[in-house]
């Protein structure tokens, strides 16, 4: 953990969605307002040139967090700072050096993230043209060709349409489009979840290469722990809108603190076939519409006590990270048999 200022810093981020029934229905049927607390107080920091991996299961809010960071949603509370600049301050996304311009995003679904009616050349060139990064038709074509080569495709592919490409190739095109905006920071929302294993390996290798060569910083979101382990320097675990634990990768995976993290690591299928003993997984993720009071994980936690059922745990700072767990704070969490040992 460097002492230098982080590239991105989030503090107390909250994003709530009002999913109540229409006003008339609520009045007539006496229904209460319903709010989904998709992100409910998340704080973290990402250093330049590193990859922050965010894991969690469905309903944990990681996709919402990704969209918050990149500006697609507005937070209800909290602040995001990019190189010290508060993103909520400047309103327009104009100007090639504004914070939003230096952030780009890669999406999960390779079949929906490219406009099916546009040629690849236009798709990739759009950020170039919109931000006037390059001038003139010839320069634009040259830059598009260069970007295609960078992601492992051929410049001749520029004239084709997205449907002529496979899933893995389409993700490469998405990456090329993201790079066209000359970003410093890439938010990757499950970029390989829809891809086959061998294609995933290609894309992950590519992303690592690009990070090294271009000095990129990644926020990498995935539900796949093995993938997150492979790409991340720091990992955060989310559960029902809260960041329950974050630490550097090795610490989190070898010495997980939060009971949920331990449960997740236990649940992963044992590919190495070590035959290790597992704690049986209990219960399911509750509905985000009606989260449990206190610590959201308490119904499934073997260490829950009365305090867990009523009080939301605050962050306990650890060397290299933080955990939000009463059991850890009170020192009553037993040691965990190291994973893979």
């Amino acid at each position, binding site marked *: 953990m460097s002492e230098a200022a982080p590239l991105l810093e989030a503090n107390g981020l909250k994003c709530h969605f009002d999913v109540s029934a229409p006003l008339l229905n609520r009045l007539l049927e006496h229904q209460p307002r319903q709010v989904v607390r998709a992100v409910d107080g998340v704080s973290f920091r990402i250093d330049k040139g590193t990859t922050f991996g965010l894991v969690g299961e469905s309903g944990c809010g990681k996709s919402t967090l990704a969209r918050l960071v990149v500006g697609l949603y507005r937070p209800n509370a909290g602040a995001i700072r990019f190189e010290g600049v508060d993103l909520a301050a400047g309103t327009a996304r104009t100007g090639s050096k504004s914070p939003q311009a230096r952030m780009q*995003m890669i*999406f999960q*679904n390779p079949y*929906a993230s490219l*406009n099916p009616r*546009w040629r690849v050349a236009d798709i990739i060139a*759009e950020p170039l043209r919109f*931000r006037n990064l390059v001038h003139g038709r010839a320069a634009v074509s040259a830059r598009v060709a260069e970007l295609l080569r960078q992601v492992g495709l051929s410049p001749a592919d520029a004239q084709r349409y997205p449907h002529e490409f496979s899933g893995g190739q389409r993700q490469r095109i998405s990456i090329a*489009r993201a790079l066209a*905006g000359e970003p410093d920071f890439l938010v990757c929302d499950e970029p390989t979840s829809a891809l086959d294993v061998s294609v995933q390996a290609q894309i992950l290798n590519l992303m690592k290469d690009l990070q090294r060569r271009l000095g990129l910083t990644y926020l990498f979101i995935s539900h796949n722990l093995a993938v997150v382990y492979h790409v991340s320097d720091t990992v955060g675990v989310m559960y029902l809108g809260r960041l329950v634990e974050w630490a550097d990768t090795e610490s989190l995976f070898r010495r997980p603190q939060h009971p949920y993290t331990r449960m997740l690591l236990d649940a992963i299928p044992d590919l190495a076939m070590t035959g290790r003993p597992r704690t049986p997984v209990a219960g399911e993720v509750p509905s985000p519409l009606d989260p449990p009071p206190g610590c959201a994980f308490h119904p499934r936690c073997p260490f829950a006590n009365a305090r867990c059922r009523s009080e939301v745990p605050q962050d306990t700072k650890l060397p290299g990270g933080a955990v939000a767990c009463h059991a850890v704070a009170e020192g009553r969490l037993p040691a965990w048999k190291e994973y893979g040992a």
Partner: protein
Amino acid sequence: MNGWVHRIRDSDLYWSFTRSKLVVVSAAITLLFFIGAFGAPLVAPHNPFDLASLELTDALKPPVWIDGGDAAFLLGTDDQGRDVLSTILYGSRISLVVGFLSVLFALVLGVGLGLVAGYAGGMVDALIMRLADVQLSFPAILIALLIDGITRSVIGQDRHSDIAVFVLIVSIGLSYWVHYARTVRGSVLVERTKEYVLAARVIGLPGPLIALRHVLPNVMGPVLVIATINLALAVITEATLSFLGVGVPPTEPSLGTLIRIGNNFLFSGEWWITLFPSAALAVLVLSVNLLGDWLRDALNPKLR
């Protein structure tokens, strides 16, 4: 250029087109109509709109294969001495022009409103959709009649004849925009959540630009199909209005006018004045409808 031709030949659309004889025939017939209608000055034996060339002595002549027929008038003449065949050709032109332009008008209006409603959402969406709902409660003919009638009374009968065709186009167009708007709105709602739209927002493009450049090309598919079916409807609506006497002026008869005129003579035995224009209208509408059906199925990826 060559590559382009090859792309068409290889495409799924072309393949499904050539597979169905019915569709090919429909397309051929529609094409024939077009050539006949727009090439009328070249193709038609007479010009029925040229009032000077009409001779009342030629009136009510039967088709050529019946006793009393004249080879100069293959399908007979009407009560003014107009050649039925020529009038069908010239009249088709009016029907097609009115049909096309009114469809175009409805399309632009409907697609535009649907795009705005779907993309903007909220109050704007609600407003436009309520407007659509209100309009749907009126039959299309009624709306066309209303607008036509209002224009007549406001502008006056004589001036109205001059711009009758435009009034007709606008009134028919206004009665059919809702279908486009609803369909487009539905598609826009779906496309709006897709990731390529999100990607455009992340790049920083403003909303209207995204709606126009990214979303619009992807929602036009069903619009094309609606338009072909709408064309048939528009032609019939124009014919109906002309039949009712509130469409085109009687000096420039369309298919509908001819049918109306012929109606008066049905019982006195001059059947050809009604029959041939009606048959022409039916064949045209049927062909366009079949084309539209084929297009809908051909463009449906699930059936491919």
